[in-house]
């Protein structure tokens, strides 16, 4: 039995050379990840939760890092780590993946440039220097994160975004003046429509059958209309529509209230065509 791990990468923004950035992100994510601890006794496998036992890092043997080279004018010009604009007009691209032990893991050449042997050797020497730097940066970052977590300091993506930079799009929290909130709330309550009439007394049809209030119109028949209203893009529209529906309902209940005393009780939320209330002594009285 083995573990299967999946790495998803989301590209938020870039200015070229996604390969290099993604390779660094991927290997750092794998080094940083902790998997649940497992113990195997014969046929029995116990997977411990993070609460039971500290999660364990993956066994990463080495850290291959990609370095990209862009070629222009048939190999005359070479640019390391090209930007978006340089990538778009380059003739050829050479990607070398290497680890800090100077072991080449991948070489990929694309484009219309024919590369000479010493060009490739030169590129691999540049790669070795770059990879050494980057690997050191990664090690330091992982150590800092581990230290911060142990000591209870702040860690994680949100904390690593610098706040004072112009690219951070942070707004200072705005103070809200709450001096006259009580007055304003009182005004709103005074001007608001009174709530729909509260039915405190149940209406006793027969011993055992009572009714409190009248309920709202069944809106099952209006399902299509309500879906169309939800599609309206502006919230204002749907809010206005919602208010209209509410008004219609209150009007209906008020008309029904007027007829209440004279005619038999109308059970508006029932879908039965005929509603029969069974009464012990009299004949059943048919209502809607």
């Amino acid at each position, binding site marked *: 039995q083995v573990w299967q791990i999946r790495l998803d990468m989301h590209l938020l*923004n870039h200015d070229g050379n996604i390969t290099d950035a993604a390779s660094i992100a991927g290997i750092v994510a794998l080094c940083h990840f902790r998997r649940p601890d497992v113990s195997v006794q014969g046929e029995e496998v116990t997977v411990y939760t993070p609460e039971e036992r500290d999660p364990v890092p993956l066994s990463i043997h080495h850290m291959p890092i990609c370095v990209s080279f862009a070629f222009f004018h048939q190999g005359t010009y070479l640019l390391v780590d090209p930007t978006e604009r340089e990538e778009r007009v380059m003739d050829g691209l050479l990607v070398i993946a290497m680890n800090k032990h100077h072991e080449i893991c991948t070489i990929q050449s694309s484009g219309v440039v024919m590369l000479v042997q010493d060009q490739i050797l030169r590129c691999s020497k540049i790669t070795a220097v770059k990879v050494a730097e980057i690997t050191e940066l990664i090690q330091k970052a992982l150590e800092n994160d581990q230290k911060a977590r142990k000591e209870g300091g702040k860690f994680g993506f949100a904390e690593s975004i610098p706040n004072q930079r*112009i*690219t951070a*799009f942070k*707004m200072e929290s705005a103070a809200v003046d709450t001096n006259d909130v009580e007055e304003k709330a009182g005004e709103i309550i005074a001007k608001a429509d009174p709530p729909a009439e509260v039915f405190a007394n149940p209406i006793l049809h027969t011993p055992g059958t009572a009714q409190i209030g009248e309920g709202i119109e069944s809106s099952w028949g209006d399902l299509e209309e309500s879906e169309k209203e939800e599609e309206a893009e*502006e*919230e*204002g*529209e749907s809010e*206005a529509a919602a208010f209209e529906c509410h008004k219609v309902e209150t009007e209906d209940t008020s008309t029904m209230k007027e007829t209440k005393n004279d005619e038999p009780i109308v059970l508006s939320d029932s879908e039965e065509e005929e509603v029969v209330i069974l009464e012990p002594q009299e004949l059943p009285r048919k209502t809607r």
Partner: protein
Amino acid sequence: GLLVTKCGLLRHRPAGGGAFWVDSQQKRYVPVKGDHVIGIVTAKAGDVFRLDVGGSEPASLSYLAFEGATKRNRPNVQVGDLIYGQFLVANKDMEPEMVCIDGSGRSNGMGIIGQDGFLFKVSLGLIRKLLAPKCEIIQELSQLYPFELVLGMNGRIWVKAKTVQQTLIIVNILEACEYMTAEQRKQALAKLSGT
């Protein structure tokens, strides 16, 4: 439960029924019907061109959707050309469709964008700022050099001035406008027109 899908400032427009929307910084474009965008022709498939508009799918553009185009009189569109058009169809269920004519059949400024010039990408918020009526940035830039400018709602801007150097200067200023304050911009422009 409640799920946050967009972060930003809540804006309200009381006019015309009232609208609420979330104002946020975004570079990724999602095709919207009626938006005018700059597309790059990536393929010609029979009677239809495939355009890259920066969305999740390429848009289609029929060769007849140009002013004065007929089956005999086809527009001269090559792969790699830039097209300024608007979305006829754009929703999450279908491939977006573009046209280069308006409702009455006139091109109204849309069509194939000329040769040369420079295309670059900025955030959607900057485009909306530039498209606002009486945009200061455009007015100040036009004092500098004469130039042609096409703004696509998908974050793409095409600029063409008399020389390559002038074009690149305008490109750099427009890109920097993302982060410069009005004073910084006026200073930069004053330095440029001075030298």
